[in-house]
């Protein structure tokens, strides 16, 4: 929907759920890192993890923890600001910029935790941990109103025509068991086995307003699309750290691709047969292959990184990771991507750490228009900073702030002709006519890729954690 001068939409939603962008409402948002210590350092933690949840990135990081028993609990609070705009045109009908038509702001909270035990035996150090954490989030919210451009109902047109929303809930959680050992000061090897379970529910709806129903004599039918799925499966990850010198550590971690078992239905159709997206066409445009909603795959992921500890008047650590994600595992339309992470920790006076970092990651958006599938590659740069302190001797508190912004083009979430129905619903609109009696405005038609939306999303993510070692 949204044609320049007849629709106005809203606004601001505050929800109490952990959520991401509706861009990933079907595929979910893969959660890469939960520890605020390393998050503050750009999530570059392959080789320099000193908190329990850093082993999520590389299980070998477990051996960097202090001997004994310990735990970590972490909580995240995130604000996602989603501004959707449509293209504007100048008097030459040339695109000249975008105007925001809908703003959504969602806030979220999330939690994870784990325990570990580590001890030294002869030349070996052995560690094991149990963690419970979110692995994928499907939670996303979107809300917009379809309005006439008339400011009252006195003229017989409904002020508000319909209310559109997308509500997506659920996630895949991991119950992970990790073990790692370190030999002398040479290197360490870690393994993670994670049991993944979860569910997701998504509802996309267009609800006509009572005012619109009045005009149309209650003939308008609401549309509600649903997708409900349950997920289960396992995922493995192997990680290695090589202690090349007191100043330099190298790491490598690999997680093979893993297909989850998925049950559920899409609008009453079993997800095994409900097509999510067509992925292959012949020259006549006939679909040859497709992905169903039941095909849910974690892509193969390999990460190499280093940690450098130079001599510096402030104790300093610099971490740098490069991650390869084989996105083509999940969807043949995607290309594999390389993500980069870099972070620094300086210990300032009075042992106060100052951490900052940067990363850029690649994700994909899928759009279907008239039987054709479009794939958007979207890069997201993220700026991070954070600090922490120790209290009661054995407790450590870390806090981090991430700021990301991404911009991409996408198709209208709810196409305009739905509210016009090729003229069938013209009574809903405040129309203008030219001298020949033809409708001059608004011209209500779907916007395809010729006139896509521009989405500007900003994520502010505040994470904090308490760690304890006994």
């Amino acid at each position, binding site marked *: 929907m949204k044609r*320049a*001068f007849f629709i*106005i939409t809203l606004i601001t939603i505050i929800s109490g759920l952990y959520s991401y962008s509706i861009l990933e409402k079907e595929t979910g948002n893969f959660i890469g890192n939960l520890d605020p210590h390393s998050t503050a350092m750009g999530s570059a933690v392959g080789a320099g993890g000193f908190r329990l949840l850093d082993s999520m990135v590389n299980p070998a990081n477990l051996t960097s923890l202090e001997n004994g028993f310990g735990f970590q609990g972490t909580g995240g609070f995130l604000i996602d600001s989603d501004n959707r*705009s449509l*293209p*504007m*045109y*100048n*008097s*030459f*009908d*040339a*695109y*000249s*910029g*975008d*105007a*925001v*038509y809908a*703003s959504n702001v969602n806030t979220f909270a999330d939690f994870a935790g784990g325990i570990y035990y580590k001890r030294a035996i002869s030349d070996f150090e052995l560690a094991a941990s149990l963690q419970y954490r979110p692995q994928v989030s499907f939670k996303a919210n979107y809300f917009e109103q379809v309005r006439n*451009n008339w400011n009252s109902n006195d003229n017989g047109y409904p002020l508000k025509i319909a209310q559109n929303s997308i509500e997506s809930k659920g996630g895949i959680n991991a119950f992970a068991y990790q073990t790692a050992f370190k030999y002398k000061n040479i290197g360490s090897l870690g393994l993670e086995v994670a049991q993944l379970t979860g569910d997701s529910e998504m509802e996309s709806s267009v609800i006509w307003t009572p005012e619109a129903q009045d005009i149309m004599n209650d003939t308008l039918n609401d549309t509600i699309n649903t997708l409900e799925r349950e997920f289960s499966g396992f995922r493995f990850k192997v990680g290695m750290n090589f202690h090349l010198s*007191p100043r330099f550590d190298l790491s490598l971690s690999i997680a093979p691709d893993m297909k989850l078992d998925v049950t559920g239905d899409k609008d009453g159709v079993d997800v095994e047969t409900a097509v999510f997206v067509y992925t292959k066409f012949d020259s006549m445009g006939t679909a040859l292959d497709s992905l169903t909603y039941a095909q849910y795959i974690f892509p193969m992921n390999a990460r190499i990184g280093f940690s*450098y*500890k*130079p*001599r*510096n*008047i*402030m*104790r*300093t650590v*610099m971490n740098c990771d490069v991650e390869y994600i084989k996105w083509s595992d999940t969807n043949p339309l995607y290309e594999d991507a*390389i993500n980069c992470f*870099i972070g*620094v920790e*300086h210990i*300032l006076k009075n*042992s106060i750490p*100052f951490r*900052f970092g*940067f990363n*850029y990651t690649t994700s994909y958006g899928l759009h279907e228009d008239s039987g054709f599938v479009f794939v*958007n590659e*979207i*890069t997201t*740069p993220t*700026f991070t900073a954070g600090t922490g302190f120790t209290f009661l001797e054995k407790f450590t508190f870390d806090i981090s702030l991430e*700021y990301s*912004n991404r*911009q*991409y*083009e996408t198709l209208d979430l709810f196409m305009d002709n739905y509210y016009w129905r090729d003229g069938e619903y013209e009574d809903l609109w405040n129309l*203008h006519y030219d001298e020949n009696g033809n409708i001059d*405005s608004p011209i209500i038609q779907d916007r395809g*890729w*010729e*006139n896509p939306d*521009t989405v*500007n999303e*900003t994520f502010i993510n505040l994470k904090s954690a308490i760690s304890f070692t006994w």
Partner: protein
Amino acid sequence: MKKLLFISLLIMLIISIAKAKIDLNTVTLHELKTQLPITEKQAGDIYDYRFYNSFFQSIYQLREIKSIDQKTLNLLKPLVSISHFDEKDESAKRRDDIYYLIERLGSSEGLQEGMSDIWEDYLISPRNINKLAFSDILNFPNTSPLDVAAILNRVAVGDSISSYRDLRKSPGISYYGAKNLQHYVYYKEQPDVRDLYFDYQMKYNDSPYGDTEKEMYLESMIRYAYGSPAIKNKSYWGYFNMESDRASMMNKLRMRYKNQFKAGFIYETPKGSTPIFDSNSKTLFEDGKYYVGYENNLELLGDNFIKVYAGNFRATFGEGLVMENTDSYSPRKTGYGFNKRITGIIGDISRTQEYALRGIALDWKRNNMNAVFFLSSDKKDAVVYDSNENGELDDDDYILGYINMTNRFSNDELGEAETFFNEYAGNQNQVRIAPRLDALQEDIIGSHFEYSPFIGTHIGFTGYEARYDREFVVPEGDELKEILIADDYHFNKWKITDNEITNMYSTISDDYGDRDYRRVVGFDWRTVLNNTSIQGEYAELEKDGSLGKIGDDPSALLISSYTQYDNLYLLTIYRDYDLDFDNPYHRSFSESERYDDTVFEKLTYGLNNTLLNDMYNNSAQPSAEKGVYFETRYQFHTMLTLTKAYLDIWERKSDARRGVRAEVKLEFKPIHQLRFRIRHKHQVKRYDDEMERGKSQADETELKFITYLSNYDKLQLGYIYARVLQPPYLSILSNPAEPGAADMAQAQTLTDGDMIYLDYTHNFNKNLKVIGAFAMWYANGASFWDFEDIELDFDHSDRGFKTWLNIHSRIANNVYLSLKYKYKQFLTRELEFRDYNEIPEEGEYYFQRVEREENIVRLQLDWKF
């Protein structure tokens, strides 16, 4: 004797006691644990402090270790000693000492374009001041010809400069000249530095396209196909989905063995292009730049200094009239101070792409002679038009000129986009001119010969011939307009300033027939008389005249004089460039770049292909102009300095428009920590004709207050007020936009705007610096340049604000990281224009949020090893 014996015994006793103490800078972890009355943790912390923080300079540093309290320190005091110990090698130490200079060079890299690398090499491995040639010393930053002559005059009489203090005593050398030079040279003994160096640099920058470039891409390519749908991909911006263009990334690696063997490689993926990960070895070398070079003194029948470079190289001679191959244009490039040019041959891994030279170059200096030969063979991007009128842009078509493209779309991509636009455009608006990648094979042979009869004086000759595999032809008369301009409705926008286009170089002419080359020759000179240096260059582009005859071809002339006193300098530059002196490698002093005010700049919306706007946007050649420029600096008093004042009076050749521009910067420093700066700029274009409607006047005043706090922290507060008086825009105020067609009274338009900014620099210590800034403006049509730490930003539009944070971290002695985040938001004037254009017709629109937001991250990592 007894006394002597007693002292000897005492010394031995002290030594023996001292020897018994544990030296914290050499003690092992095991010794710390076993030989001192401290816990194992404390021993480990002391060891870690030494390993990860710093060697001990004082025993009191132990208190910086968390586990060492005062009681433990008192306990350790009699048991430990601190020896002078530093593991850093001399190179690392030197880098440590001059880090602030390296940082300063890095911050001005954008202006110097590749030169900072050369200067940094000499900072680390300085050169012997007593063995340098004139041009070698002059190539160091901020040295004047008079400083160089002062040094060489001493060396020539057998004297040698033995120290910085001695250097300062050289008659005629300026305080700033000597001070700037001191770290780039050595006097007696070469510092004991390493021989082999590697420098790696990575830059990630996701700054958006500049406003001018963005507007170019946004302009519709099918605007005259009335009734065509309003779709986003009618423009290059929409067609290529440039909103989602990737950030630019640069990777650069340099290697140097002493100052003799040098090699470098750069691969830059500008905004919107394929990242390095997707490159293969072929594209890496085709699109990357690289060089290997050798420089050395050779004792071969006397003293010879030889430089040989293969790969990409920079060639700069004289005042840049004949040859200075860079893509970047900077106005008022005087060749002095911060606007210096490094003359001669150097390896080139700058971001220059279009005017890069690739081949081999030899620079040979012997006694008072210098000879340079260079060969280059490279493909260049060019503007191609459908000269054979077959409806396609193919290899048989003529070339209009070189073009430095903002986004180097591939030829296939451009072709597909043009086909798409043509489908809508209708017959009369088909794309008939467009840039093409690597459309032109350019083979250059060039040389420079210089003879110096005595110190400070030389005469040089430079020339090059560029051979092409395609013809440059600038159509004549209306044919040119028909090719460049989309619709004859806009033919009346073709103005006299477009002479710069009609006077572009053609290889085919009625005067000289058909040729496949361009030749430019010239000579330059310099002489130093007392405290004045006079220099200049004259060049000709061969057209229908004779190569050896002066005055029968399009020419360019620049003469300058520089007079230097202790607290004062005076610089005067006279230049005169012919309109048809179209030398693509011309980079000398000018007020504006070529094609300023032509249809390439002003008529983007009316061009057949909006991408031609890049001819102006990225033009590196100076505009054809004639004028005189004065510049001075004077320190009235230690508290009051005229930091820079200049006056330029010039005439643009294309339309004889005269302009004057003056700027004065004054600094008042009542105490060292407090500085007040005032800057005023005044510019009038067409000052000679009060009645001319094209007259415009701009004034800008800036007040700045700076206070230096402890630990080099700095707080800066500034205010800028700009005022522009310009001619009325008939196209906005009335239609049609034709002279005399105004249907309402016209008046001059006054716009004024202001900006306030605040920035704060906090040094946590010498290795960590954070700079935060905030600025807001109400430009109201005016615009401001704002210097943001290490880069310039251009702020205009209606109202806006920005804030940025830059973290400079010195990770280790040889690893530097800089991370900048900027958020900028401003209102566009789109609403007003929409209102003017009566869109929507009812005057009702709901899109109040038409501001633009920019989130910019800039990351730079330097690793020197």
